């Protein structure tokens, strides 16, 4: 199976990766003959970033569920794996999705570059390159050279580009290079208006394309002409005004312009990327808390992050012939933007363009219905309904086991949080009424009813589950739970809600 290596850089990288995980969990798949195994690599110096921690936990749960339920169960059917699982070398890394940036924690940038050991001319040069002010963890104003990097690069790509250049000599990059095959692809997620992402994207891209010149790594043969896609997220949210913070909304556009100007020569201008997705939103909605990173940086999920995740699906649908590369240069570089049908402040499925709606409406609704059933009705059905008692049994012991109690419950709880956060955000995405009856679950969709058509409620779902499961064989209770609900929710949403796949 071919692999897609995803470099998720900075806070936006983690949040887009989270959205992708949700889409993959719901069964969203690229329309392609090829199946891809996803290998996420999160690059963020800010280890206490709540968005990063949430995404890591989510990926861990996804991995366990997918391993237990198998890859033909509908939900969770795209394999996600950690980089360390691909290697058998003695230098095997711990099973984490996060790139371990060395020597960043607790160090000032000046210590990282060995400022005190520089001679006077170089000190003067560093002073010019890294002039300006920022803040430290204690919210005190400091010189840029004295920034402590364990809360990220606080919107300073000039620091980020120096630190992230260490990626090319890391064990992770060596593992990535030695496992990269001709059919594999790379995708880079970054934002352009902050520090980590804006610096990381061109740095990673350059390191991959220049891998042939890197003497520290083996098996770099395919990297130079790798099929590389990227989404660069332009400003899409508003932040609170805080004159003490180094992060200001007014800087977003200036930083974006500066970065785009740099990309013009070093990314798009030299054709080093095969497919680049731009996404932005100028809607001025609910401001986020102005947190440079010292308070954990936990931002609500946003529609733009989900749309960015769809860029990855779109990239996987792009045929190989459109991603040809020669000597590190894309022969037919592709540039794409994302749009919706209606400029709505609160997006529903019907506000999306047809392709996007077809891609996600059915699958997200399936997962939402699955979650609703498990949280609101499973305890009434367990060991009572035929589908639960049919072999392999889904009984009380099963729901007390880690798979259900921890992995699946936690994942679905995160899924609900993700939907709620997107609904509460402005611009919002609120296609579901999560707390309503099943028939009112999907905004703008009414249930088809008639003389001979039963209504959709939990008992009717039990009927359909039992009917669906009748005579089928499942390899385990975990696989049965996932596969049975996938098939049944698809049938209900098709026949009763008129959703199309």
């Amino acid at each position: 199976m071919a692999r897609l290596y995803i470099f998720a850089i900075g806070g936006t990288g983690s949040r887009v990766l989270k959205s992708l995980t949700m889409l993959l969990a719901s069964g969203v798949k690229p329309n392609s003959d090829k199946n891809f195994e996803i290998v996420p690599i999160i690059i963020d110096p800010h280890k206490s970033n709540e968005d990063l921690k949430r995404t890591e936990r989510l990926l861990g749960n996804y991995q366990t569920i997918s391993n237990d339920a198998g890859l033909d169960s509908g939900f969770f059917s795209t394999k996600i794996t950690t980089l360390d699982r691909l290697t058998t070398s003695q230098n095997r890394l711990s099973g984490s999705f996060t790139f371990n940036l060395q020597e960043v924690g607790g160090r000032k940038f000046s210590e990282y570059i060995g400022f005190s050991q520089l001679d006077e001319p170089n000190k003067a040069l560093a002073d010019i390159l890294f002039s300006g002010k920022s803040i430290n963890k204690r919210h005190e104003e400091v010189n840029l050279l004295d920034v402590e990097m364990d809360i990220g690069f606080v919107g300073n790509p000039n620091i980020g580009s120096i630190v992230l250049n260490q990626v090319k000599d890391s064990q992770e990059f060596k593992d990535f290079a030695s496992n990269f095959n001709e059919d594999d692809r790379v995708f880079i997620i970054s934002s352009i208006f902050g520090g980590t992402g804006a610096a990381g994207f061109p740095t990673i891209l350059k390191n991959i394309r220049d891998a042939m010149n890197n003497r520290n790594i083996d098996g770099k043969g395919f990297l130079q002409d790798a099929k590389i896609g990227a989404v660069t997220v332009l400003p899409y949210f508003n932040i609170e005004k805080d004159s003490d913070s180094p992060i200001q909304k007014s800087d977003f556009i200036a930083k974006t312009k500066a970065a785009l100007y740099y990309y013009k020569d070093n990314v798009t201008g030299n054709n080093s990327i095969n497919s680049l997705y731009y996404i932005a939103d100028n809607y001025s909605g609910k401001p986020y808390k102005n947190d440079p990173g010292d308070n954990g940086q936990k931002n609500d999920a946003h529609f733009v992050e989900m749309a960015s995740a769809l860029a990855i699906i779109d990239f996987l649908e792009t045929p190989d012939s459109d991603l040809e590369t020669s000597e590190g240069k894309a022969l037919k570089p592709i540039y794409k933007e994302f749009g919706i049908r209606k400029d709505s402040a609160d997006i529903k499925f019907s506000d999306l363009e047809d392709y996007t709606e077809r891609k996600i409406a059915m699958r997200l609704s399936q997962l939402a219905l699955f979650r609703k059933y498990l949280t609101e009705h499973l305890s009434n059905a367990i060991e009572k309904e035929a589908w639960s008692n049919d072999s392999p049994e889904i009984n009380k012991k099963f729901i007390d086991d880690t798979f259900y109690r921890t992995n699946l419950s936690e994942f679905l709880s995160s899924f609900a949080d993700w939907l709620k956060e997107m609904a509460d955000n402005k611009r919002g995405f609120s296609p579901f009424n999560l707390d309503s009856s099943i028939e009112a679950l999907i905004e703008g969709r009414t249930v088809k009813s008639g003389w001979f058509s039963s209504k959709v409620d939990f008992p009717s779902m039990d009927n359909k589950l039992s009917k669906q499961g009748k005579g089928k064989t499942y390899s385990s209770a975990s696989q049965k739970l996932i596969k049975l609900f996938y098939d049944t929710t698809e049938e209900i949403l098709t026949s009763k809600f008129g959703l199309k796949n």
Partner: protein
Amino acid sequence: MEEFFASLYEWFGPNPFYSKDMAELMRGWDITCTGYIGTPWYVIIGWSMVAITIASYVLQYHIIDSSKFNKKHHWWIVAAIVVLFNFLNAFLIMNNTIQAGDYCTQDNIGISDCIGLGLSNAIWSFILFILLTSFKYPRNLGINCSHTTFWKP
């Protein structure tokens, strides 16, 4: 079949529920008291008991076949209906026969005999309903009630 049903209703010998005269009537002892040429009540009531019980089973397990009606307390409700129907069926048929005087008048048969027969019929219908629903087949041919028995779910 007559002997089969007779042995069932007479509990294989000592009949605890109704008189010997009632048993004779059930075997077809005719109104002129000359021979077993009258209506074979054991066969009629026996088969009607089987039919009512199977129909009730089919109705719950294969026609209604609903997740709203597949718990053990639903089983007990259907079982109670089966028992009641079969009790009334046997009781009313024989009571109407006796009230109409359609039996050998030399025999001493009363309403208590009809109640006894009704009880026997009800008990056998209950046993048949248990047998029909306690094994994997045929209940497994249904969907929602494929695990419904008197003890679960």
